[in-house]
């Protein structure tokens, strides 16, 4: 599992090396580091790491240790792989229902409508969906379309 771990380090030599130790100890494999030295504020430099941990528990232990060491945690969250998904709906359809389909982290990034007022209304929606939830999202959209009397066209 990949995590965005952004920490605040004191702008002094050796701080980064020190912070990496608990990550390694907890099984974290560092994918990338962005050290933003040009943006110090109050003597602290933000460092953004992408770390591959075996589980969320390893991340939590790392975060606890970093805090004990006096290192500030700006962000510690899972990075969710997203996929771009295009669907077309034929029939009257409330766009909000797709966004609130009960699948987490769905984002509508674009849409196009033709004949909005008629029964042949046609809606193309571009969505960002967590890659792991694509099937779940398509099932949910299909169910919603059926409830609304619309026809869902999903990609193969």
């Amino acid at each position, binding site marked *: 599992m990949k995590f965005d771990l952004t920490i605040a380090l004191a702008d002094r030599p050796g701080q980064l090396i020190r912070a990496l130790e608990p990550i390694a100890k907890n099984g974290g494999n560092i994918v990338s580091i962005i050290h933003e030295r040009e943006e110090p504020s109050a003597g602290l430099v933000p460092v953004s790491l992408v770390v591959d941990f075996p589980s969320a528990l390893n991340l939590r232990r790392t975060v606890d240790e970093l805090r004990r060491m006096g290192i500030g945690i700006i962000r510690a969250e899972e990075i969710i792989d997203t996929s771009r998904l295009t669907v077309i709906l*034929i029939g009257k359809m409330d766009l909000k229902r797709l966004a609130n389909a009960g699948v987490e982290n769905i984002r509508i990034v674009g849409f*196009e409508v033709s004949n909005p007022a008629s029964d042949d209304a046609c809606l193309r929606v571009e969505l960002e969906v967590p890659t792991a939830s694509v099937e779940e999202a398509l099932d949910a959209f299909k169910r919603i379309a059926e409830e609304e009397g619309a026809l869902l066209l999903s990609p193969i």
Partner: protein
Amino acid sequence: MNIIVIGFGFIGRGVIEAFLRKAERIRRLDEDFRVVGVSDSRGYVYDSEGLDLKRLIGVDELSQYPSGYCRGGSAEDLIEMEGVDLMVEATPTNVVDGEPGLTFMRRALRRGIHVVTSNKGPLVVAFHELKSLAEEGGCQLLFEGTVAGAIPIFSLVRESLQGDEILRISGILNGTTNYILSRMHFEGTSFEIALKEAQERGITERDPSYDVDGIDAACKVVILANALMNRDVRFEDVERTGIRRVTQEAVSLAKRSNFAIKLVGTIDRRIEVAPKLVPINHPLCVHGTLNAVHIEADLAGEITLVGYGAGRETVSAVLNDVLTVLKSEAKKKG
């Protein structure tokens, strides 16, 4: 080998014509290849010494064959004749109960007669039963012509992917709907006009529901799932949506985002036939009356086959199945 051909329609006649055209190739495998009987819905002709194929394809009706038309005789009489080795079953498809083909196939397989067919009905209704009968009777049941016409999907998997597991199949399995959707995509015509054109060109029947409501494609999905993925799927198990509701606006919206709307049959987590968005650069995105089958296998990965799914091309599949039986029988004889 002694062959009987059940059904003297488009496919039955086409197969007999192909036997004549490819006589030399056939004789190389079997010197004693003879068509001993042919039946239509009203009777049959039979000659244990072999019928005259030239004369057969010269007549409009089977009853005009110069000698021995048995009016009122049934295909079952032919199946019961002594010494029949192979039956080509080419009666019209009936997906409700598979008849009359299903009775003919059961009877032939029980007698140990090899069956080659292009008739979907019996396989949709009773695939696993017919397969078991063939195994018990020690004979072959081959049906390449039932799905996607001349596209050699079953032969490919049987001969060339013997160690693979087929994980997923998707396909454009109906030429009529692909013609209609292609016209809508390229010419901007409405569904109604494209359908009318298809009817005028003889691509679809007066009652087009078999094609446009996805019934034909669903039958093919059932056969593919049972034959290639060892599932136990019935027609009712296929979630089916046709293309009647696909509007010109939907086709244009899809086109603007580089998709084409196609009626796609899928065997996966879901077993369904429905209009789908196919990326225009995907190998499944074929147009006109073409069919395409895309398979995903555990070792071979993805393979796509493209070809014509109906009409004269189907004869190629039937002939190849007949030659497959002749070859394996020749091998047995050593």
